[in-house]
Structures are given as C-alpha cells and as structure tokens.
C-alpha cells in the first residue's frame, strides 16, 4: 500500500473541522484524482498525505510509515520519509529572486548530502538534470532565468519540474494546472500521469477541472464538506453524482439555470487514456 487513511479527522486550531472520518487507501502506482467543491478539504487531505499536517484523529500510514496523529513530540516525521514524497503546490512556493535552475534542483535537497547542497549554491550541481526536467514542461530556455521573470503559468510548471526532478514515490499535486490554459493543462496532467506510470509512483491530484480528472485518472474520489462522497473508477462517475457533489450547500434546491453541472469530458480529452 502506498498510503492508508483510517477514519482520519482534522480540526484546525480555530475549531473548524476540515475532514471527518476519511478512510482511503491506494496501492503503489495508483492514480487518484480528488474532485469536489471549494472548501471540501482536498488541500487538507493532500497536506496530511504530504506530512505537512498531522491528523487530529484516526490512523495515517504513508509509504509504510505510521504517522503519529496530532502534532506530538514525534513531529516532524523523518526526513528520509519526506524525501520520498513530492508535492506540487497550488501557489508555487518559489522565492521570487531564486534562479529557476536552483529552484528545480532544490527538489532533491532531501536526498543530497549537505556538502552537495552547499556546493550547488555556488555552482549548480546537476545542470543536465535540471535542464531535462524543465524540458519536460517546455521551459528549458528558462533554465537561468529568475523566478520573478516568469509568468504565473510558467512558475507553476517550474514547480512541476521540481517534483519531476525529485522523482518521489508518492506524487501529490494540489491544483497543479490552475494557472494553465486548457491545452497546456491537459498536456501537463498527462505528463504527471505518464511520469508516475513510468516510475511506478503513486499520484494523487486535486483538480477543479472535472473533465480532466475523468479523462486522465483511473480512480476518482469526490470530497464534499470534509467527507468522501464517492470513490469510484472514472467511468462509473455519473452526471448525477457530479451534480450532487457540486450542488450548493443545503442540497435540496435545484441548481439554478446559470450554474450547469460540470461538463463531461469532451471528445478532445479522450486522447488521454
């Protein structure tokens, strides 16, 4: 198993409960899409899998390591474990004045010995590696640019290049294509799926574009108000399920004419499988 969550709940310090009784597991090499309305807990769930947050209740096992529930003395978890988990963040966490090459190479800081990480600040330790990772997101010509010279979409792809360079066993992506146009978004999600498939890595991605999720992922998990609404193979997800998932709170009211249910995959995305 790549990860197992058993009845996981999470309460934020303010008392707001973000997740309730989440039970979810994935085999190594599975590709899972998380969908659901804003505020459903997708990011929180990814943060628990990425060991950024400790669960308030329930059991968490990631890559064979059981994580202590609430942030206790055993927090943060061992670096060796974290080095095997890669995250694509919704807002790329890159210092504006850092060069792209350094930002990408930083993906392996968890694997490199200290001397190598220090030396790489003076002269990039793995130029071919960084170049190759950037080439996969078509940004190889930005190798020596500074992050603050890039557009939002380019920055998001640098974040993806970093995680490609890290080569994690568990790849978590939080809205990895939110700043990209539809064509580039499709190509980028395909890239993540192909990379995970080629290395036998597990991929969990939260997506607002339901069509992308259905087209590119074998398994789709719907989250609503901190609970799992459904956990199905992509082809078993019906328009009715999606309508219920994205219905406005209160639920009973029918969706107004201005808010149609999320579109189903157009033909263009059939290429993804």
């Amino acid at each position: 198993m790549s990860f197992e969550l058993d009845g996981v709940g999470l309460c934020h310090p303010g008392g707001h409960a973000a997740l309730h009784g989440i039970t979810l597991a994935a085999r190594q090499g599975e590709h899972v899409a998380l969908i659901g309305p804003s505020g459903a807990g997708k990011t929180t769930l990814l943060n628990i899998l990425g060991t950024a947050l400790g669960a308030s209740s329930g059991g968490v096992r990631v890559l064979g390591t059981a994580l202590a529930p609430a942030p206790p003395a055993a927090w943060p978890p061992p670096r060796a474990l974290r080095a095997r988990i890669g995250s694509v963040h919704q807002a790329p966490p890159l210092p504006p004045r850092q060069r792209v090459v350094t930002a990408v190479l930083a993906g392996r800081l968890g694997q490199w010995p200290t001397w190598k990480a220090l030396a790489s600040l003076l002269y990039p330790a793995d130029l071919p590696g960084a170049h190759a990772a950037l080439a996969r997101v078509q940004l190889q010509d930005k190798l020596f640019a500074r992050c603050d010279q890039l557009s939002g979409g380019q920055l998001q792809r640098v974040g993806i290049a970093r995680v490609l360079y890290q080569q994690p066993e568990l790849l978590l992506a939080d809205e990895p294509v939110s700043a990209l146009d539809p064509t580039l978004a499709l190509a980028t999600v395909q890239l993540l799926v192909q990379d995970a498939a080629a290395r036998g890595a597990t991929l969990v991605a939260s997506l607002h574009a339901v069509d992308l999720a259905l087209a590119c992922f074998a398994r789709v998990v719907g989250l609503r108000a901190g609970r799992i609404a459904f956990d199905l193979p992509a082809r078993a997800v019906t328009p009715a399920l999606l309508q219920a998932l994205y219905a406005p709170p209160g639920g009973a009211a029918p969706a107004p004419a201005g808010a149609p249910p999320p579109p189903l995959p157009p033909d263009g995305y059939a290429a993804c499988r």
Partner: protein
Amino acid sequence: MPLSAPAPHLRDPAARGRLGGALLAAVLLWPLLQAAGFDLAALLAPENLRVLGGFLRQFLPPETGADFLALLARATLETLAIATAGLALAFVLAVPLAYGASNAARERPRWSPVARGLLTVLRGIPELVWALVFVRVFGLGPAAGVLALGLAYGGMLGKVYAEILESVPAAPAQALLRSGARRPIALLYGLLPQAARELSSYTVYRWECAVRASVVMGFVGAGGLGQLMDQAMKMLNGGEASTILATFMLLVLAADALSGTLRRALDAPPAARAAPLGWRSGTLTAAVLAALAASLWLLEMDLPALFTLEAARSMAEFAGGFFPPEMGGAWLRQVARGVWETLAISIVGTLLAALLALLLALPRRRAPWNLLLNLLRSVPELVWATLTALAVGLGPFAGALALALHTTGVLGRLYAEALQNTPPTAARALRQAGSGGAMAFLYGTLPGAAPQLLAYTLYRWEMNIRMAAILGFVGAGGLGQLLYVELSLFHHPQAGTVILAMLALSVAVDAASAALRRRMG
C-alpha cells in the same frame, strides 16, 4: 511530447561573474584589513585586558547618589527633548524633499536634482559636524543639537521615505494616475496604505537613533546625557558610567515598546466608522504633539531667534571661513589617507557586524538574543569606541570594533525581522520534501530575504561611513581625527577640505550602493 535534444551548452552563465567577484573581494579585503589595523592579537593582549577589566569592574555598584540621580533625570529629559524636537524638524524637512525626490506615483521616472542634491548634502555631513558648526554660531546649548539633528536626519529620513515609497508595488498608484488622480492623491490612496507600516516603524527607529545621536552631541557641548557621559568616561568613573549606560538601555527599550505599540495600532483592522481617528490613534497623535510641545518648552527653544537676519549673517560669516578650502598637495594627500582609513574602518566594521548579526538573527527563540542585540545597539558607537580604545589601543581598529559592536545590534534586529517577514511557504515546501532545516533556510528563506538583508547592510554601511568619520573625535582614526584637530586649531580652510571630502565620500558611497542594489535587485 517530443523529448528535446540534449542541451547544446550546459554551463552556468553566472559562474564566471561569481568567481570573478569572489576573487576581487578577496583581493580588496586584504588592504582594507591592513588599513583598518585589524589585529586580533591586540584584542587579546593581557595588559589591554587588564585596563579594560579594571574600568569595567568599577561599573558595580552603579552610582545612585540622590544628587547624581537628579542630574541624570534632568539630562535624560533634555536628551529626549533634543531628540524629539530634532526629529520633528527632520520630519518637516523630509516629507517635501522625499516627495520631490521620489519617483513613486510618477508615470515616468524623473530626475529631481534639487531635492536629491539637498538630501545628499544634508545627510552627507554628519550630525556631529553640523553640531560643531552650530555650536560655534549659536553658542553652547540644545539649539545647536536640535538644528544639527533636524538637518542631518531630515536628509536621512527623506532619502529612506523616497526609497520605501518606490519599493512597494506601484500598480495601485499607477492605476489611480491612469484614471485621472493627481500625484499626491495617487500616493496617499495607492502607496501610503502599503508603506505606512514601514514608514512609521522607520521613523520611530530614527527617533531611537536621534536619542543616541543627541547623547553623542553632548560630547561637543550640546547638553543632555552625553555631557555627563563624557565627564564619567574622562574620569574613568565606572560607577557613573554604568548608571548612565543603564539609563540609555532603558531609553532604547522604551522606544522599542513604543515602536511595537505603533505597529500594532497600524495592524489593527480599521473600525467600521467614518471618523479617521479612533480613540487609540487619537490618543497617539495627541501624545506625540504633547511630547513635541513639552520638548520645545523644556529646551526653552527660541525658534524665531534661529531664523533672524543676525543669525543668518553670523552663520554665513562662519561658513565663509571654510572657503576657499585648503587644496595644497601635501594636505590633499593627508586627506586622501584619511578617506581611505575611514572607508576601511567602515567596511571592516560593517562586514564583522553583518556576520555576527546573521548568526544572532538565526535562533528561533528570540528573547535572550534580542536582549543581547538591544544591549549592543543601545550603546552609541562613540561610547563603544572609548571602550574598544581601552581594549586595543587608540587607532582605526578600535573604531572598526566599535562600529561592529553597535552595528551588530542594529542589523541583528533588522535581519531577524526580515527573516520573520519572509513568506515561509518556500522553506516549508522544502522541509516537506525532506530537506533539512539549514538547507531549507539556504534554498527557501534566504533567497527571499536576501535583497532586504543586503539593502539593510548597504544602508547601514553608508551610515557607518559617516560614523567612521565621527569616531575620529575620540581618536579612532579616519577623517574625523583630521577634522577634529583642524577645527580645534581654528584651521578652517583645512577643515573645509575635510568636510568636502566627507561629502564627496558620502556621495560616492551613495552612488556605489545604488548601483549595487540595482544589480542585486
């Protein structure tokens, strides 16, 4: 997607420049260390340690006689009043000059030679030199101190206000300009909300500096705590010195608390009410005005008398004595040596301070380190210099050490703040991917904070050049020593050359640091 062919040339284009820069720095550092008289052995020499130890031992018990305490209280109030009135004058000067000099809220950058030139001259001449000049025109007393502070700090505040306004995101003001707002309105609505916190905290910080500066000016007869300190130091009276030092520290801590209160007041979300001033900001404004009025009353300042024709005439007459400055070859060579020594003292002192400050800014638990930093910066450089001169003997090294000690306190605090204000997301993401704390700092936090750290260091270095000149007044080498000697001998043309050299040095440093900032920015 097609896998691209292997890259044609994978060499870091920045590497050559970095290597060259490192070599150049190493080549330059050696003569600088020489000129600053860098000598660790002198620091550890037993006879020096003994003299210093003897003086420091007298610090306990501190002097607590009633007469002395009454004197101290009066002097403390006077120091506060000089600082407050001086800063008020500086503020009045700085606002219009900053408005004129800054390119903030302008659609096209404009070169404003008058405002920029005035700012440069005002702060290019150290406040102590202004004070010396004003003491000769207006006689001994606080008026000279207030004017000197007002002019020198007016220049500094104006420059930093202009820079802060230029450093915040310009888009809101540009949008207002494009929709037809006039520049002052665009500035008030588009830039001030973003910059207010930094502007006010910098002003409060400057007030702290003004307290220290007014102490230092006491050494040339402008009253206040400095005069007491001067006497205590000259007589090696450790008990009095320690009481006065403790008073300084209390003053600096109080200013710190005031700065914190101000910032919290700015951070508090505005109340849903139309009136601009709530009870808190209203009280604050009233308190500031009351403090200013009390200062002017305590100092018995006769402001109009400073702006009479007679004052202007005696001023002009005195200033005329400096012209034409002595330009003989031998004297110029001596001045050039003084410039070099001043530069060396400032660079070595600032570098030492930057290293120490970064180390002291790193620990997560701030309390004990903040105490140490407060201790270091609450003692003025000039006072540190009298102590370091005991430790390593008179000369430039004493000056460099004194600068380093005080600057560590200032930079350490600023560094810690900058590191705390750096968005934590980058470092947090790296830690999440398994990186250790040190590497997360180097790859995540430092790149975000570096421009600010560099800006603080460069700005402090500029100030330290001015300070390195002043330190000569207690025999710590550099231009100051030349100026002090020549002024005491009434060699005004020679002194004029030195003042010109200080100004030229300040302008050159400004240009250099602006160029550096552009490159790093």
